[in-house]
């Protein structure tokens, strides 16, 4: 079967912009992640270029593009904008039909999404205003630990103690980290404690629901310690998609495949079907 027409999903997140390109039959033919920087439109273009690179295909083959994420309305050429909540649910479920909960730990926000057996959204939560429990939180506390962000995961994985950081807010956690360093606690234990505190925030957002959980987002994609902490608190390892960071973009691309071209002339029925300028 020919790859074209192509269907594109772009997840313009606050830290990273992700792109997934699907062939007409729904197989992933390309994907890419770039830093969002300050211009979502440019980042989206760059992510698409990256995703198409090496496929021998080009933008002219794109039949439909759906954008999602914080900067979804800035993505040029997107026929529809759909929230990251619906897209993550869609992407994760396509990888794991049995999934009920999706835990997405991103740069600026953390989401927990629950769907039923039909894939219908049942409940969803986003972290409230504070950064605690997000990638940004990890970044700011890494500075306190004096460890580069890229090294914090490997360090945490060497910990054998059951250390948990207790503060709710980013600033207080920073202070707690300094106190613990001063009291001689090994940095690897503090690092693992940090991931556990994120997992605890996520767990609180889950509202005592049951069912298989998939973990997505940049923090999950890059940190095994995050998965370890999630496994500890949920009592089972979370399902880990092949490209956890691209779950939202994948969901958006799947939705792009369903867009009825005739619908595009219709003025919006909703956010889900909002036609961008």
């Amino acid at each position, binding site marked *: 079967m020919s790859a074209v027409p192509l269907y594109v999903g772009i997840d313009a997140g606050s830290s990273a912009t992700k792109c997934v390109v*699907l*062939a007409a*039959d*729904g*197989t*992933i*033919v390309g994907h890419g992640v770039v830093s969002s920087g300050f211009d979502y439109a440019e980042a989206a273009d760059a992510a698409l270029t990256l995703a198409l690179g090496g496929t021998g295909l080009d933008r002219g083959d794109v039949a439909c593009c759906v954008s999602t994420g*914080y900067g979804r*309305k800035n993505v040029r050429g997107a026929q529809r904008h*759909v*929230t*990251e*909540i*619906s897209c993550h649910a*869609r992407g994760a*479920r*396509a*990888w794991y*039909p049995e999934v009920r909960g999706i835990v997405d730990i991103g740069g600026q*926000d953390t989401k927990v999404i629950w769907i039923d057996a*039909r*894939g*219908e*959204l*049942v*409940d*969803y*939560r*986003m972290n*409230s*205003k504070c950064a605690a429990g997000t990638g940004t939180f990890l970044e700011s506390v890494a500075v306190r630990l004096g460890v580069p962000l890229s090294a914090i995961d490997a360090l945490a994985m060497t910990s054998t103690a059951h250390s948990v950081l207790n503060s709710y807010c980013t600033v207080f956690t920073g202070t707690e980290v300094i106190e613990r360093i001063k009291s001689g606690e090994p940095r690897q234990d503090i690092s693992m404690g940090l991931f556990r505190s994120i997992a605890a925030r996520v767990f609180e957002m889950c*509202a*005592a629901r049951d069912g298989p959980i998939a973990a997505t987002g940049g923090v999950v994609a890059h940190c095994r310690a995050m998965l370890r902490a999630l496994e500890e608190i949920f009592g089972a390892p979370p399902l880990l998609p092949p490209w956890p960071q691209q779950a939202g973009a994948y969901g958006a691309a*799947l939705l792009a495949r369903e867009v009825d071209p005739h619908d595009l002339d219709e*003025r*919006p*029925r*909703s*956010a*889900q079907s*909002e*036609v*961008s*300028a």
Partner: protein
Amino acid sequence: MSHAVPRVEIRAAQQLKSLMRDYFLDLDAAACDADRRVAWCTSVGPCEILVAFGFATYFPENHGALLGAKRLSHQLIPYAVSAGYCAESCSYMNSDIGAALRGVSPLQDAYGIAGPPRPDLLVYSTNQCREVQDWWNFFGRRHDAPVLGICPPTHLGEITPAHVRFVRGELQALIERIEAHFGEKLDRDRLAEVVARSSAASTLWRRVLDTARARPAPISFWDGLIHMAPVILMRGSPAAVAYYETLLAEMQQRVRDRVGAVPHERFRVYWEGMPVWPRLRDLSDKCLELGVAVAASTYCNSWAFEDYSGGDPLEWMARASIAIFINRDEPTKQAFLLEMVRRFDLDGLIFHNARTCPNNTNSRFGMTQRLREDHGLAVLSVDGDLSDQRFFSTAQTMTNLEAFVEQLEVRRRPASSAVSQEVAG
């Protein structure tokens, strides 16, 4: 791209503007007139007694809301906090105290008056929260004016005759204290007249809100927030009754003409909790864009009291003051919400978790979960605040609202067309 759909404005709004102007100018005149007295009262407090005594009545919560709507609260709250009030206490209170400390008031620009009228008396009821007591005490000290109040039993399930008797006794004691302080007897016949007018305005207001049972709803929560002003500020006055007669007639006509508050109404939802005053426009525009009519709310219904059909006016006041939603227990509140969902044929509920008003926030003790799980309802909870915009994330809330509509769309589809399973690549 936003798709502005033209809305038909509510004509009575013009009349409301002049009514509000008259009200504030009269309050200002009363404060400057040695022969008149001003009383401050809580929004669901015993204002009929004050009106019957002849006080011009002023409601500080309205000022708190105005400060929020004008996006001044977050600049003023720090002054209250530095005066010893916790930053997470009621942001109406904190912004009002901060405004007084800074000499700021939206009434200056709106009506050309210096600000809130100086009180001769401050009266509260803790049927809504205990915060009002301390808020009133701040201004009592500042203006050297007496602060009197009633503390009815709270969080009630069934309302018993003993409850009503107790509150009636409190109201009677309040009257006696006012009489003693000002050396003036309350005219009981006048009280009955005021109560009758208060009840009439409240009944008309409820009928206005009930017109939103029609599809499309002729009035939404966002309109209600503007048009509810007389039922609070002018309770007991003939002007309030006349205003709601006009508004009701207009709403009934809109129902006949099928004019909706949201022209292309697709979904009908409930708003539970306080408004987000600094972001009303953003939220109402988003609802308009999404085709969502907020057809019913707890907040607008807070002033829809029971009818008064003669008899002891104090008993009516006692009952009204404890029967309000905010003063009820969790099961009663939940039953009320379920009934509203049924009566207004709603697709879902939005709960506002207002950071500084736990009293008027009902998503903190598992209710959203129970409504979802036990009753299969679509429920969204948004974090924010009534006046302090620092507790509100516009981007996150808008995403939440859009996702809620996506959820409602999927729920509306027939089961067979629910999300099909995908083949992973």
